[in-house]
């Protein structure tokens, strides 16, 4: 990483330039986050007249709640599947595009489009295609003898949200993988070819290791995406159902707080979610990053 030092003529100018961003972060992130931490220690009556400070009661109740533990398990399945699929498919696409000389740009542009689609719209798109009564894909599956109904089948509901969430993230991963692949010098692959390595061996022993910094970065981004940014997709497709099977943590925060009006529990859940992601990210940086430098 190269660092560039800029000298400002006025010492207040840099602070002024930073101010809007800092203000937005403070008002829309830091302040609500602190509020959430505060709320997580409180119980509020249903009409909002009285709040009681109850220490860790919200947390202990959550951790004993089978519904919450179920959501944790569902989140794990969902995050792992989305990360593996979104990164796997985008790597395959990136490798394919990287082999093209001229038409690569066109494919790159086309493949980035899903990223511009809002999560809710992406969710609705997949919801339509898999709609048990009118969806084209559920019709095709029906022809092949598969009864598709994600409204009653928990596994199919999970498949649906994993597909919708991965599809959106593939574009982003793809861009980074293409850039990563282009920074691997062609002469390395050529040297490996002369050294007797076939295409697959070259890919695994030369390209993949050299791509590892990109892969590592995407791993963190994708896990965060799956845990935080998939609310819209789920809200538009399954709303956590059927029978809580797709009620992942971030959706449960919303459902318990805004639909169930249990602000204290919802706040405690969001604090826990934040902690989980922080711990995951720190662990990855401590133990994985060391291996990806060369």
């Amino acid at each position, binding site marked *: 990483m190269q660092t560039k030092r800029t000298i400002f003529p006025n010492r207040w100018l840099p602070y002024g330039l930073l101010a809007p961003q800092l203000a937005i972060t403070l008002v829309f992130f830091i302040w609500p986050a602190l509020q959430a931490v505060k709320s997580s220690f409180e119980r509020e009556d249903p009409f909002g007249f009285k709040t009681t400070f109850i220490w860790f009661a919200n947390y202990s109740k959550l951790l004993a709640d089978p519904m919450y533990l179920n959501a944790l398990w569902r989140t794990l399945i969902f995050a792992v599947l989305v990360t593996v699929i979104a990164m796997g498919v985008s790597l395959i696409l990136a490798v394919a595009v990287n082999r093209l000389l001229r038409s690569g740009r066109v494919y790159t542009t086309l493949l980035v489009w899903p990223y511009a689609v809002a999560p809710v719209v992406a969710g609705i798109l997949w919801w339509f295609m898999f709609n048990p009564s009118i969806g084209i894909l559920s019709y095709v599956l029906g022809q092949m003898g598969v009864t598709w109904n994600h409204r009653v089948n928990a596994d199919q509901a999970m498949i649906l949200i994993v597909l919708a969430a991965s599809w959106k993230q593939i574009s982003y991963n793809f861009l980074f993988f293409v850039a990563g692949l282009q920074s691997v010098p062609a*002469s390395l692959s*050529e*040297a*490996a*070819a*002369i050294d*007797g390595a076939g295409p697959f061996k070259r890919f695994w022993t030369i390209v993949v*290791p050299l791509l590892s910094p990109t892969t590592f970065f995407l791993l963190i981004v994708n896990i965060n995406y799956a845990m935080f940014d998939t609310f819209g997709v789920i809200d538009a497709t399954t709303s956590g159902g059927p029978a809580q099977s797709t009620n992942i943590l971030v959706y449960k925060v919303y459902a318990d707080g805004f639909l169930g009006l249990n602000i204290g529990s919802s706040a405690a859940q969001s604090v826990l979610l934040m902690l989980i992601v922080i711990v995951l990210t720190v662990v990855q940086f401590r133990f994985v990053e060391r291996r990806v430098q*060369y």
Partner: protein
Amino acid sequence: MAAIELAGVKKTYPGGAQVIHGIDLAIGDGELVVLVGPSGCGKSTLLRMIAGLETISDGTISIGGAVVNTKEPAERDIAMVFQNYALYPHMTVRGNLEYGLKNRGTPRAEIDARVEAAARTLEISQFLDRKPRQLSGGQRQRVAMGRAIVRQPKAFLFDEPLSNLDAKLRGQMRIEIRRLQRSLGTTSVYVTHDQLEAMTLADRLVVMNGGHIEQVGKPTELYDRPASLFVAGFIGSPPMNLLDVAALQALPGVTLPDALPDGTDIVGIRPDAIILGTAAPGDILLSGTVELIEPVGGESHLYVRVAGLEQAMIIVAQGRSELVEAASLDFALPADALHPFSRATGKRL
């Protein structure tokens, strides 16, 4: 160990651009042949075609008697040293050296023995467990060489391997490459745009221009008897003076030697063949003014402007010249040092 033979080799890119126009070249077993020419002359493309990194549009390339046109680079049993070294950055030096042997299923004991031997030859034994980024440019260059010799291939291909080094290191490595190639006796093809490197390394020199071979021969042959204007201008530093015959004859008191072949319209003369001062009978006597003096230590390069001639002439004066800039100078072009060329064909007469 193997001879390399190129017959009618052509390269046309899919867009229709032809970069190699029918190359015939036989490289003997154990010979070091240098391909030299300006950028874009096709020398690197030709090397990559021998390596199997570029397809061959027409003609055949054979290594050790077997046509290799459709063979994968790995099957050709050659080793290549790249300009940017192309070391695998995530592997240690040992990993880099081993990679090709491991891919070919060489037994562990033999791998270790060969790596040790190659490391000792190139004096990189103490770096075996380092990563390439922890090495200097010269050390990386050695590792790249090591990766080539450890495989004991039929031929070495060098693609401008020294151009990323500083001048002093380049000189050292050049000598080492020469010594190594001699002691191993491995057929080598070496591509460079540096004519000094080409002259000093080559058993035989191939001068290329615009996808054609201009001349093939021993470095001294090419220097003494360049076959074309291009070779005359490319080989030798400072370059040969190329003088227009008509302009030369128009100068007062100048008569060209009778020995020059008919149709000579350009004569060339090496800067170090020009004699300062008086002349033997039959030599061409010229006088001009010194425009610029470049002292290079043991000799000086004089840029002399002769009235009536388009370009300043370059003269190499031995020792330290007493001359000053703007002084007038008499000098002689010895008749037997003139190279006759035809402007129309660009060839020697």
